């Protein structure tokens, strides 16, 4: 297989990003407390979500608002498969189809979760990809609400807003770093692939690209399903580490949080997705600490609930006003080091 120059640059970029991801992970493993490791893990889960979002949004340039719901599907399917039957007999006594009478090993569960999520995204995608960009965004909002109501309504399967507990802890920080590296390479590979280039061309000029023989709907569908798979992986990683899940984290708040990350970093590039995730994840931790009213250099700051929300909203508004392309714009990480294209 011969690679084009941009694809070779893509490989270098993916390697550089992977190095950054591994470095942050190593630092956290050696110097972080248990609590800090949890935060770093959370940041990596969000990273997976944001990259999953970038695969569709960045290449097709259609805003998707349903991603957290697909993450939720992945998390719930994996959780239902992997939780021991004894625990499920207590937590889901009324589950239909014998869902509480079996349990599988983590790998099989993850594969089933990815397959089911991919199937559902494919079905939804068939409709989404044919709409105009703004119509697709709105339809994705409808999808988010529908899936969330199902989570809340079928308490016999999903337990709604209550905790679905007893999921064995399978993942550690190391495993999610490995997953994140794979996903980054995948996302970058897609972006520079024939499909990725054609899709980005269709986002710039849909009619023009179609006239050149690009099957826009098909490419959007491919990106949409790939994005769904990555979101499922994010959901699985979330469930496999925390041990409990509920429907609440897969709704509007999470949608906006991850969207803000992608927008700040720049949705057109994978580097932007990574940068935005880490800036907001760690920035919000600082703000949350300020929110509790700590004592800084002798000054006792007041408790300010809602500060993190204000900051998050301001990040979105200011990015849109002053740098709608995000921090990275069209530049990937390797473009920072070598200016020539």
């Amino acid at each position, binding site marked *: 297989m011969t690679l084009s120059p941009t694809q070779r640059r893509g490989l270098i970029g993916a390697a550089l990003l992977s190095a950054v991801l591994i470095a942050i992970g190593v630092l956290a493993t050696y110097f972080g407390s248990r609590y800090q490791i949890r935060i770093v893990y959370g940041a990596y889960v969000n990273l997976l979500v944001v990259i999953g979002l970038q695969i569709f949004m960045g290449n097709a340039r259609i805003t998707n608002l349903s991603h957290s719901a697909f993450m939720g599907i992945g998390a719930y399917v994996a959780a239902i498969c992997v939780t021991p039957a004894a625990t499920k007999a207590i937590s889901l006594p009324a589950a239909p189809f014998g869902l509480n009478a079996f349990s599988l090993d983590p790998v099989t569960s993850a594969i089933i979760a990815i397959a089911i999520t991919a199937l559902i995204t494919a079905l939804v995608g068939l*409709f989404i990809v*044919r709409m105009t960009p703004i*119509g697709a965004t709105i339809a994705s909002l*409808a999808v988010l609400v*529908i899936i969330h109501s199902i989570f809340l309504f079928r308490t016999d399967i999903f337990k709604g807003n209550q905790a679905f507990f007893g999921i064995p802890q399978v993942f550690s920080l190391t495993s999610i770093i490995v997953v994140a590296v794979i996903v980054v390479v995948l996302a970058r590979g897609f972006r520079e692939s024939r499909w990725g280039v054609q899709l980005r061309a269709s986002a710039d000029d*849909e009619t023009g690209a179609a006239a050149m023989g690009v099957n826009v709907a098909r490419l959007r569908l491919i990106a949409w399903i790939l994005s769904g798979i990555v979101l499922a992986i994010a959901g699985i990683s979330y469930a496999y580490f925390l041990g409990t899940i509920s429907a609440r984290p897969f709704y509007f708040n999470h949608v906006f949080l991850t969207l803000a990350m992608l*927008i700040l970093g720049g949705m057109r590039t994978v580097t932007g997705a990574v940068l935005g995730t880490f800036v907001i994840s760690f920035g919000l931790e600082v703000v949350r600490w300020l929110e509790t009213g700590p004592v800084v250099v002798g000054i006792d700051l007041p408790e300010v609930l*809602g500060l993190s929300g204000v900051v998050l909203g301001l990040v979105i508004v200011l990015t*849109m006003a002053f740098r709608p392309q995000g921090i990275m714009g069209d530049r990937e990480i390797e473009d920072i080091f070598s200016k020539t294209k």
Partner: protein
Amino acid sequence: MEYILQQFINALSFGAEYALLALGLAIVFSVMGLVNFAHGEVIAIGGYTMVAFATLVTANPWIIILGSVVAAALTSVLLERVAFRPVRYADPTTGLLTAFGVSIVLQNLFLLFVSPRPIAVTSLYFLDVPVDLFGIRISSLQLFETLATLVVIVALTLFLKRTIWGLAMQGASLDFQMVRLMGIRANRVFALAFLISGLLAGLACIFIMARRGSVDPHLGFNPVLMAFVACVVGGFGSLPGAVLGGFLLGIVQVAMLVLLPQEYGGMKDAFVFGIIALILVWRPNGILSPPVEKGDKV
């Protein structure tokens, strides 16, 4: 028969409220292509103004109502100046995300400076009394709501068809550059659109507050979601579409409440949004959207 009539009036008044909300979104969208998700927070500002007036200024409900409508209108205009002007000519997605951002900021400011808990407002209870009409019992609020929406529709139509500024706004939705060449100031057209949208938000706020009797930071979220849905169904940017969508949504919601068996009550939203998604599959741009060729210069 009476039951059907009763439910029909329910659908009508729900629909009127959604239409009122949807018009507020549609008028801004038609002029600048912005899906103003912060509309709900403008409504919440109206609600908080009621609280402030009722506790600090006066107990006279009419002054409280006036104050909240004025506050909502001013907030809307202020938001245009501060937040939406930089993204004025950007694509709809940029505008949508900005509006989401503004909405998050405002919600959290309420949380920060007022209170996360609901605050009761009792001064509007007098609007809600039971009335007997042709043998069926309805709330006066439903009547007021439907009437207010009808008045708004007539007034808005007259304004858009008979005044220069109304024509300018209609023109702006088609070809903004041309409107500016005719000597109309762009800033004023935008400010006017947001002013009208704010007034509509204030009006909707009165009815929402009269029904709920309390205000909390997330007051605006559900109404704006419903307005958004109504706009989508009717065709974004089309004012008749917003009205049609609003009433249609009211009918679908009441129909779901009546037709769905009791145990599926929790799935109401899923069904409503499912119907919305299907309408979008049928008409991707909404029912009353103007036909646009993909190659058209927008």
